[in-house]
């Protein structure tokens, strides 16, 4: 596939290709829109594929496969994403390199099968306890490919479970995709997590609270140490910006267009787009907002403020820029709407 310069692909096809190129050997899944075609596409690839009875079994299937030293993944959405949190918590506890592709749909419950950005908090913090995970938010099909490759690589390199948090629009869209730019990505090979012919006692339950506490502290310290190697973001026009727009995923791409247009109208606006939602590019955002010029932060998203919660939580308390929000839960946002909103802001 990578020999041809441009292909006309859906997001589903991009994910399948990225997983194949990443060296994934198996997928476990239960079909749910908008991720069904990842499962059927993987099945058609001829690789190992198991349609399980539900997402709980799918998630633990992936845990089993990676324990056996095989790159494996699943894909789901909405209510299925909730069920996967059980196995994902175990993956956090045991630091298993499982990979999950989430196609956000509207909620709560079955909601719509189409689109939202309402699974951010679930993807970033959906486990019980306080496990650590990697969460990536692609803004277009090229990034969907790239971040799926990164999810496999970084999950196996750093031994944390990873989620590629995308949405129904990005998965269902069919678009020109250029794979040439990704030829140089190298794969981190899988390793056998349990030595062959050895009996290993590997608990994910502890008798004493002190025992668990040590594991939690170590996991957190490791995560903080690797964060600087993983965090990624895109910024635009921030040098003299007075208004900073923060958005992720496809809304981040839309907001970028709005920034370009607003700049033509001499409005001093910039963009900060987190590409990793966890670890969050906190230091970089603090640095940008710490410049005295930023007077207003506007968080734009297709939810009631899930990204906004993370931003407010992560931003250094001494930063005194005021907040505003453009929120359209379960709905797409067009560049014109962002432009209109920003033009009506009074600083």
């Amino acid at each position, binding site marked *: 596939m990578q020999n041809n310069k441009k292909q*006309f692909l859906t997001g589903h096809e991009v994910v399948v290709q990225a997983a194949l190129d990443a060296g994934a050997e198996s997928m476990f899944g239960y079909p749910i829109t908008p991720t069904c075609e990842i499962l059927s596409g993987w099945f058609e690839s001829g690789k190992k594929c198991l349609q399980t009875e539900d997402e709980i079994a799918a998630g633990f299937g992936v845990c089993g496969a990676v324990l056996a030293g095989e790159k494996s993944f699943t894909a789901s959405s909405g209510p299925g994403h909730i069920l996967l949190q059980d196995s994902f918590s175990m993956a956090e506890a045991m630091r298993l390199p499982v990979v999950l592709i989430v196609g956000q749909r509207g909620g709560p419950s079955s909601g719509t099968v189409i689109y939202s950005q309402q699974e951010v908090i679930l993807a970033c913090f959906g486990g019980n306890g306080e496990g650590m995970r990697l969460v990536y938010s692609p803004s277009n099909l090229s990034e969907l490919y790239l971040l799926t490759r990164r999810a496999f690589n970084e999950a196996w390199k750093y031994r944390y479970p990873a989620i590629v948090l995308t949405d129904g629009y990005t998965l269902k869209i069919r678009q020109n995709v250029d794979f040439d730019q990704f030829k140089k990505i190298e794969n981190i090979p899988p390793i056998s997590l349990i030595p062959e012919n050895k009996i290993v006692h590997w608990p994910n339950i502890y008798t004493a609270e002190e025992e668990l506490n040590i594991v939690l502290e170590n996991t957190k310290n490791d995560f903080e140490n690797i964060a600087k190697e993983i965090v990624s973001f895109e910024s635009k026009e921030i040098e003299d910006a007075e208004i900073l727009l923060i958005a992720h995923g496809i809304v981040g791409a839309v907001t970028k267009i709005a920034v370009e247009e607003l700049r033509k109208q001499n409005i001093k606006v910039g963009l900060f787009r987190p590409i990793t939602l966890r670890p969050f590019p906190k230091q970089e955002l603090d640095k940008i907002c710490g410049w005295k010029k930023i007077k207003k932060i506007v968080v734009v998203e297709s939810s009631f403020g899930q990204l906004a919660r993370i931003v407010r939580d992560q931003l250094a308390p001494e930063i005194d820029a005021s907040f505003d929000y453009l929120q359209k839960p379960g709905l797409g946002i*067009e*560049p014109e709407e962002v432009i209109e909103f920003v033009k009506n802001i009074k600083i």
Partner: protein
Amino acid sequence: MQIKILLSGDGGQGIQTIAEVISRAAFEKGLTVSFIPNYGLEQRGGVSLAFIKIGDQEIVYPKFSNPDILLIMSDQSRQRVLEYISKSKKIIDIKDYNFYLQEKKINSKNYNIFFLGFLTKMLEKEKIYLAEEIFLALEKKLSSKPNWEENKKAFALGLSFNF
């Protein structure tokens, strides 16, 4: 250059089929294209929409609220796209062509291909395609399936309609 097309109809009428033909033909021509289907849970009977953008620049966001061309193929879908109607530049509404479809005895199964022919003529006028380019993509998709002759006839009638 960019053109935005919104196709709407009932599930089962073949909206996604013609959307695929239009966007595939654009891709084969080397244009930048995005096509996003939009429908609910229903396999049949619900409203089916297709948002298509074709141009020579990178396409960032697949949806839009101001189509250059809006196709309406059913009463139900007319209700669904109500908010788009006042913002559309050109509207093709099946209710204005019922007489013609009946006069030419076009089977309702082939209405989508009639309107594909119709759209092709419009897109040719906009200098986006040549009619042969869309026909080639249509042939690739449907020529091995039943009713190809009827579809071919419906396409030709759409293409020759004098609007």
